Each structure stands twice: as structure tokens, then as C-alpha cells.
């Protein structure tokens, strides 16, 4: 072979020809369009129809948005400015945004709920993202009290006393829990109640130590009210729902009985009925003259309602776990609370995420139902003070469109987070 040289043969190839580029139909945009939009006759027809539908919608919507009037003081002025052309009257949003967002909250104190809103993200961060340092959870625990103080105002002593009551309860609980869980639980509750009762003498209503101007519950409204109700009710109903789901599975007949009765009763009653109960009927059962805050009553009802649904979603997750997981936990000597906390619930909750998010989004949107019992949340504000005023009577699309957009942004955010979380918790990848 060694005598085969370039000089002794007619031709030796020394470089390879560059590979030719594939035909245009096999690359880039054209390929994508062929594969995804026009792969068959039926698909081509559907593609054309969809393009037509989108075009039609945009020809209706775009002029309405682009021509919109942002600067007017009433719907009549809007119409004069538009002079017969298509266009939205968005001036109502510009003029009434503070009512839509804050209700009748005093205008010079808007910074308070805004600050609480910003702090909320900081407080939720360590709960939502497990890779953040765990020490931030202290801030999360303090947030409800800070937020209450910021939004409702009054003396800082009130939320501090409530917080200290919880701390006292926890301390007693951790002392007694070694003897038995029931004893610790009851002891903790009693200690907290005693503390609150005692602190009632120290913290009187007119205590002025570090006081913010108090805001009445009836002045809290707009989208802020929806957010407060949604966040509070969801945060409380999740642990309550877990407890109910475990209670329904319990081998102790009394706990099981009460869990089943509670879940079935609450699920069988429309939320609106519960809200009417909170608004009207509950007042009959309370001692005369007692001033039980309406927002608190509504919160309790929505929380109970949501917890029943969440309990059923989580029960589905618990039922989906193979029995071997319980047995493996048992055979290693883990006790009930350990095996629930470390093995069963992490897996059951992971399975339940889509269902829980479903309930959460539904609950958040259902907070607009409080407008029916004459609370002025976002929808209540639109239907009441704004649409009833002579200036803006008839601006339906713009107002409800705005409400829809606000809710969509938040619900879409929740949904995106849950999908991210599901991907994070996926452990069966190869």
C-alpha cells in the first residue's frame, strides 16, 4: 500500500466537499409552518379559520382600546370626545382607581396597605421557594401581625399582645407535649386564652403607644379587600384542610365522625348562604352589643368553606399513595406524626397540588361574592358607588374588563407558580 502516492495515481481527494444546506422546505420557519399549521387539509382549514377569527376579534378590540379616552370626568364627556367613533371610556379607571383598589380607605394612608402588600411578597418568599434560607420564616411568622397593624392601624400593642399570646401558648405546648400531644395542645390553647384575657386589661382600646390612625373595617374595600380575604382565608384553610383530611382518615371514631360531618355539611351548602349567615344570622347568636367585625366573620366562613374543599383534595392525594409507604414508615419505627410529616404528607400534597391550586384560584375569585352582602370589594365598588353615580352610569365593559384583568393577572401568577413547583418536586426523572 505504501507505494500509492498522490504522484502515482490520477486523483486523490484531499478535502471533503462541504455538506450542502438542506432544501428550504426542511428548515426553519417553512418547515415549522408546514408541520404545525398545514400538515393536512383539515388542519389547513382550521388554521385559516383561526386566523380569520383572531383578525375579526382584533378589528373589534384594537380600535376600542387604541381610541380609548383616558381623560374625562364623566361618560358624557367621553362620548363627546369620541364623537361617534368606537372607543373605550377608560377615564373611569383613571378617575376612580383609588376606589377600585382601596375602597374608602383614607387617601393619605395608602402607603400602609401598599407597604403591607410589598412585605407580603417578602413573607411568602421563604414559604414558596424552599431554597431560600430558613431563617426568613421568622419574618413570615411576624408578617400577619405587622400587616394587621399596618392595614387596620390602632396601637401596636394589640397585635403584639396577640402575638405574645401565641408565643405563650407555644411555650406551654412544647413543655407539655412530651407527656402527651393532647395535654400539650389543650395546655397551649388554655395558656394563650389566659394570656389574651389578661392582656385585655393592659391593652385598652385607646392605648396610644406607637399608634397608627385606626381604619374601620367598613372602609376597607376594593381589590385590597379581595386580596386580604383571599390571602388570609387560603393561608388558614390549608392547614385546616390537612387536619380535616387526616381526621377523616383517622382510626379514632369521634375525630373521624366530626371531620366527615363538617366536610359534608360545608360542601353541601352554597358559599353565598354561609356569607349571609356571617352577615345576618351570626349576629343573633352573639351577645347583644358585641362588635364582632364583619370582615372577620366573612373570613371565618370563607376559610371553613375552602378548608372542606381542600380537605377532600388532600384526601385524594392520601388515597393515591401506596400502602407500602405507610408500612415502610411504620416498620422504621416512625410515630404517627413523624410518618405523616416526613413521608405521607410531602407526597400526598405533591399529588394534590393541581387540586389545591384549583381550589385556591376558585376561592380567590369567590371573594367577590362578598359584594352580595353589601361589602365593597372590587366588584362591589363597581356595582355600587361607581356604576350608580350619574357620571359613570353605563361604563360596564371598561370596569368589569379591568376587574377581570386584575383577577386574571393574579390567578395566572398562582397557576404558573404551581406548575413551576410541580416541576421542582418531580423526582422520578431518569
Amino acid at each position, binding site marked *: 500500500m505504501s507505494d500509492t502516492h498522490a504522484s502515482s495515481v490520477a486523483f486523490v481527494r484531499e478535502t471533503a466537499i462541504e455538506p450542502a444546506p438542506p432544501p428550504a422546505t426542511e428548515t426553519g420557519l417553512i418547515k415549522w409552518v408546514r408541520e404545525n399549521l398545514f400538515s393536512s387539509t383539515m388542519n389547513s382549514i382550521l388554521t385559516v379559520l383561526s386566523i380569520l377569527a383572531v383578525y375579526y376579534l382584533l378589528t373589534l378590540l384594537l380600535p376600542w382600546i387604541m381610541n380609548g379616552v383616558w381623560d374625562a370626568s364623566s361618560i358624557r364627556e367621553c362620548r363627546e370626545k369620541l364623537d361617534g367613533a368606537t372607543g373605550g371610556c377608560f377615564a373611569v379607571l383613571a378617575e376612580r382607581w383609588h376606589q377600585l383598589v382601596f375602597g374608602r380607605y383614607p387617601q393619605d394612608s395608602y402607603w400602609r396597605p401598599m407597604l403591607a402588600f410589598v412585605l407580603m411578597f417578602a413573607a411568602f418568599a421563604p414559604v414558596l421557594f424552599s431554597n431560600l434560607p430558613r431563617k426568613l420564616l421568622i419574618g413570615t411568622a411576624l408578617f400577619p401581625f405587622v400587616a394587621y397593624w399596618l392595614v387596620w392601624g390602632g396601637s401596636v400593642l394589640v397585635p403584639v399582645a396577640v402575638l405574645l399570646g401565641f408565643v405563650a401558648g407555644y411555650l406551654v405546648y412544647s413543655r407539655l407535649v412530651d407527656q402527651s400531644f393532647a395535654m400539650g395542645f389543650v395546655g397551649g390553647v388554655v395558656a394563650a386564652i389566659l394570656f389574651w384575657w389578661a392582656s385585655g386589661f393592659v391593652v385598652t382600646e385607646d392605648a396610644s403607644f406607637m399608634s397608627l390612625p385606626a381604619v374601620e373595617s367598613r372602609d376597607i374595600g376594593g381589590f385590597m379587600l379581595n386580596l386580604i380575604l383571599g390571602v388570609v382565608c387560603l393561608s388558614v384553610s390549608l392547614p385546616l384542610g390537612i387536619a380535616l383530611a387526616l381526621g377523616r382518615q383517622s382510626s379514632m371514631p369521634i375525630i373521624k365522625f366530626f371531620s366527615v360531618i363538617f366536610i359534608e355539611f360545608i360542601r353541601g351548602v352554597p358559599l353565598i348562604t354561609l356569607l349571609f349567615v356571617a352577615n345576618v344570622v351570626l349576629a343573633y347568636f352573639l351577645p347583644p352589643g358585641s362588635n364582632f367585625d364583619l370582615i372577620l366573620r366573612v373570613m371565618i366562613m370563607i376559610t371553613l368553606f375552602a378548608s372542606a374543599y381542600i380537605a377532600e383534595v388532600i384526601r385524594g392525594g392520601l388515597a393515591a399513595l401506596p400502602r407500602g*409507604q405507610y408500612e415502610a414508615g411504620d*416498620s422504621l419505627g*416512625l*410515630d404517627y406524626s*413523624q410518618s405523616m410529616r*416526613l413521608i405521607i404528607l410531602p407526597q400526598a400534597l405533591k399529588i394534590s397540588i393541581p387540586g389545591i391550586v384549583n381550589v385556591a384560584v376558585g376561592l380567590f375569585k369567590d371573594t367577590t361574592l362578598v359584594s352580595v352582602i353589601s361589602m365593597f370589594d372590587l366588584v362591589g365598588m363597581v356595582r355600587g358607588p361607581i356604576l350608580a353615580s350619574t357620571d359613570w352610569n353605563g361604563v360596564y365593559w371598561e370596569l368589569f374588563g379591568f376587574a377581570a384583568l386584575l383577577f386574571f393577572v393574579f390567578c395566572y401568577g398562582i397557576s404558573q407558580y404551581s406548575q413551576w413547583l410541580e416541576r421542582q418536586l418531580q*423526582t422520578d426523572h431518569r
Partner: protein
Amino acid sequence: MAMTDTAPARTDANISDEIAISIENMNKWFGTFHVLRDIDLTVNRGERIVICGPSGSGKSTLIRCINALEEHQKGKITVDGTVLSSDIKNIDTIRSEVGMVFQHFNLFPHLTILENCTLAPIWVRKTPKREAEETAMHFLTKVKIPEQANKYPGQLSGGQQQRVAIARSLCMRPRIMLFDEPTSALDPEMIKEVLDTMIELAEEGMTMLCVTHEMGFARQVANRVIFMDEGQIVEQNEPEEFFNNPKSDRTKLFLSQILGH
């Protein structure tokens, strides 16, 4: 006909006179179905017992009664000197002394291999995390998969998962190990790696009760083979005698079926 309990015949350095498990006249029902009838069994420390028998004969139920995964209704079970009662503290004590390996591994899919192994030592034994991790790595090395420590169970093969399950039990430093058909859910080529691990464990003197159909394993490792049928211990003997010279007809039939192909 339940035979009287014979003391281990094989002379064996690992077997001591100390009694690890004693079961006296134990009965169990599932509803009206009488699964276990008058079981009498004494296991000395260091014994390796293989339990075999047709499906539905109650062999799994028997070993599941020992760590109270199943509740027995009549009779007395004593494990490591502790009498099994319905007291939860009592049961938890026994469970932390008795390791169990399941047919379907039952690893915790949401935790890594290392976390699977350290969970119980940290929470039940209150071992410091670092020490628990060292122990876990020691046993993972022993079952020859230390390099998988940070993977999730779903990323491992069946045989690897079962070896992790064995390591997970060993991390609790149990004095008795129960195996409930540990190789039945495995592909043939993975059975050997699990059996090798179990053989190694037996050679170190672990008290083992093993429900299995691996007769080769029984011959090599067991000092006693127990044959069960219809909820009763039909026959028990040392492996050579049991396989070459079975006494009851039921045993002969069973052995001809599983060895005769």
C-alpha cells in the same frame, strides 16, 4: 399438623442460646378468614430462617405480625424480650429494633437515597445529622452503591432499590431483619445482587427471617427451613434434611413443584 419446635440442629458459631423471637400459640383472622392457626415458633439470636410455602399460606402475614404491621388476635409474641401489645410505645420500640425489607422496596420516592437512609436514625434515634450520614454511607458502601447516594429512588434499577432498602433498614442497627419476598419483584439478573447482600448479612450473624422462594439461598444460608400451608407450620428442619428428606406429603408436593422444572 404443627410440629414441635426443634432447636437448631446445625452447629453454628453465630447462633447463641439467647432467644430473639418467641411466638406462642398465635392466631390471626382477616375478618372471618383464619389466616394463622396456632403458630409456635422460637428463634434464637443468630438464626437464619427461610419460610416457604404456597401463596396464601400466611407466611408474609406471619413475619408482618412480628413487627406489628399486622395485629394478631390470640397468643403471645415476644420480640427481644418485649411482649407485643397494643401499646403504641411498645410497638415503636420493637419496630425500631426489627428491620424489614419489602417485596416492592417501599423506598420514599420524594427523598434521595441518602435521605431515605438517614430519616429514621435522625427522627427516631435522634442521631446527629452528620453521624447519621456517615452511618448511611457506611451501609450504602456495604451494599455497593455509595455512588448513588444523591440520586432519587426512581432513578435506580429494581435491584439497586432493594439494596438501598436493605441499607435503610440496617441504618437503624436492627438486631433482627425480616425479609418479605425481597426478590420476587426483581428481574432475574438482579436477584443475585440482592441475594449476595443478604448472604453477606447472614455471615455477619444477623438474625434473619426470610420469606422467599429462592431455594438455592435457603440451602446456602438458612440454618432452618419452615414450610407453611393453610396458616400452619407444616414442617421445619435444617435445609439438607428438608430438601432431601421431606416428611409430610404436602411438603413433598410443594418441593416437587418448585424444584421439578
